[in-house]
């Protein structure tokens, strides 16, 4: 999600450029006034959803990693290390 280009500053500025009302005659003026207001709500809701997802993602992911170099005979103990990692929100990387 964080890599979604639509949320990059560059994409955001492009989106604004598209939404900007074009110079036009009077019959199109009403449309061009209401459009930015609708887009504002949509953007607010989407931004809120995005922030919520990021917060949820951060909460559910381990806060930190612990890298353990283990001998080749330790592979049967890796589940025990991982289990401790899950309990403590630590991503245990065994190499």
């Amino acid at each position, binding site marked *: 999600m964080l890599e979604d280009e639509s949320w990059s500053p560059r994409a955001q500025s492009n989106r604004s450029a598209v939404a900007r009302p074009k110079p036009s005659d009077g019959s199109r003026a009403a449309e061009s006034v209401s459009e930015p207001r609708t887009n504002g709500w949509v953007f607010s809701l989407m931004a809120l959803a995005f922030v919520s997802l990021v917060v949820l993602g951060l909460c559910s992911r381990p806060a930190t990693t612990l*890298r*353990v*170099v283990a001998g*080749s*005979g330790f592979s*049967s103990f890796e589940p025990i290390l991982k289990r401790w990692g899950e309990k403590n929100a*630590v991503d245990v990387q065994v190499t």
Partner: protein
Amino acid sequence: MLMLEDGSIDSDAIWEGDSLWTSLGDKQQLVKNSKSIMCSPIVFGVKKSLAQELGWIGKDVRMQDILSAAEDKRLRVLMTSASQSNSGASAYFGFLYAFAGNPDVLSSEHLEDPAVGEKVRRILDTLDRTSESSGWMRDHFLARYENYDAMFNYESHVLEMNQKLAASGREPLYIVYPAEGLGVADFPLSFVSKGSGDKAPLFRSLQDYLLSEPVQREFAAKGRRVGPLCDQVDPAIFRPEWGADAAHTLNSFKYPSEPVIRQALALYQTAFRKPSFTVYCLDYSASMKGKGREQLTQAMRTLLDQQQASKYLFQGAPNDVTIVLAFDDQIINANESGAWTVRGNNPEELERLLARIESQPTRNRTDIYRPAAVALSLMKEQGIGDRFPAIILMTDGQSNSGAGIGQLEQARAVTGLDSVPVFGITFGEADPAQLNSIAELTDGRVFDGTKDLVGAFRKAKGNN
């Protein structure tokens, strides 16, 4: 040990077989808060009927007894490499102590004693197969149970293997604790301090967890000895009929000083171990051009440049044979195999071989089966003799030419060399399935060189 020694370690913790290796490597004092998590002595596990036949049940068995039985061809024995594996090193130091007459501490004089060297060389000569991994060796023994009779390995590995043997209705191994004693692995978990210290509380939490009662019980159920004195065991796996004896006072030698340990390991590699016959099959197809070729050259340098090889304990021995086959969809150097062969460990000859490897240009498509088949023919032609054979086959691509695995099967049948293992190393776009099928056919293994080609070559070479 090496990563600690040169400070290149980028991990937060180390969990290894024996605190010896940490203490040898920790020149920069990076290791803190080391605690033993469990223990397991190195033992000699032998098929029970054979132990009975040899009169070893319930008796003191000395190293000389094992040597005599192996030399009489009554035992086909497995042991990991002393220079690449903790269990192998523990057994090897046990041999040295036993044949030096059990001194309080082993010295350089003992190592230089020809009588000690001769017996150590003899017992190592009786080995049928070696490996860099004690876990893999246990599994290999289980998979090829009819091919072997005994192994030096961790007591816990013998017990775990016995559980599987019992489940399949096969004869168990009987545990022999050699009277002179072998090493006792203490499996320490240590923190690697790199200045910031922010991971220290996490590490302590993990260490406490592993030492907590429920987790210690789990280790005991896997045949490890636990508790502060390493005297607590799980009776369900520690079965007396398998020779397991928790009350047995573990005779363990005292590791000598660092210079003597290093001298002993260098002697193992250059003078005592059973020599090797290695054919390296190296991929020079077009896709290896550039970085692939550079990494290949670097990997081969760590094995053949005797100065670099000594850092990793891969020095050659006087009776080793080393051949390099350069391949794409053909054997590029087929007509000059003599120039690509080194008999012995002359550093200048090995350097000349390296120069050839470095100057070999890359070429066409890939056929990985042909070089393995040609390697067998060369082994047959030159004679393996009393050496550990291995074919190390490195490729970065999928075999897209030639007659496939059939030509390797045919070569095995024609040469009669059906017990030569092929160790595959993957690199770049290599197809692990193709290498796995070769490893399966030949009782070899496949190592992933896509992230660390040099490391993969070192692991592969650790098997002979």
